[in-house]
């Protein structure tokens, strides 16, 4: 999946992946896709939940060795 921005949050634990993702999305335009890399297992549930709460679109995830790539589309 093609992303407009890639952020590496590996090594970060709750709440930092979500906090940093929110900050990154704020700097992006609507319609753009953010890709984040996280190995925090909490992020696995948090990323889709954050998307649902904020109205942004969760495009999916892809396992990549010992971390996961999450894809989020900014809608607003």
């Amino acid at each position: 999946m093609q992303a407009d921005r890639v952020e590496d949050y590996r090594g970060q634990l709750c709440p930092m992946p979500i906090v940093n993702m929110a900050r990154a999305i704020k700097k992006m335009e609507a319609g753009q896709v953010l890709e984040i890399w996280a190995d925090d297992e909490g992020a696995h549930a948090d990323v889709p939940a954050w998307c649902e709460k904020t109205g942004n679109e969760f495009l999916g995830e892809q396992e990549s060795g010992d971390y996961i790539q999450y894809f989020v589309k900014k809608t607003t």
Partner: protein
Amino acid sequence: MPDNNKTSIVVFSGDMDKVFAGFLIATGAAASGMEVSMFFTFWGLKAIQKGSLTGKGLLGRMIGLMNRGGIERVGPSRFNFGGIGRWLFKKMMRDKNVVGLSELLETAIDLDVKLYACKMSMDVMEIAEEDLIDEVSGFMGVAGYIKEASESDVTLFI
């Protein structure tokens, strides 16, 4: 039914574990687009103090010394062992790369979390306005808190 997308957190405890949970939830809520306010009262005031020695009268100064403020001075609610527990928990958290309390507080402020101090408990413990960190948004009494809480989707007592 509240629909203002607000979170209201009362921080009554001055323990590291509980204060940490309070700030973690606050930053999570703020990151999720909610308007967050935190009300620090009684022991919770410790988390928003500069760390200066507080108190005017004898009792005030005694409590100010025994319960000296500052976010790095809060100890775990159990196994503190005079401060060793606090050091050990902080080490465990650092080793696992968990964000520290000072940084978490800064993150909350950066995300626009509002910090309010309970005027009444400040007066009881003889903590002055200058003893609080500059980022405190203001003072509140119970009516102010109730108004905020009644407008909030998420209300918590920590």
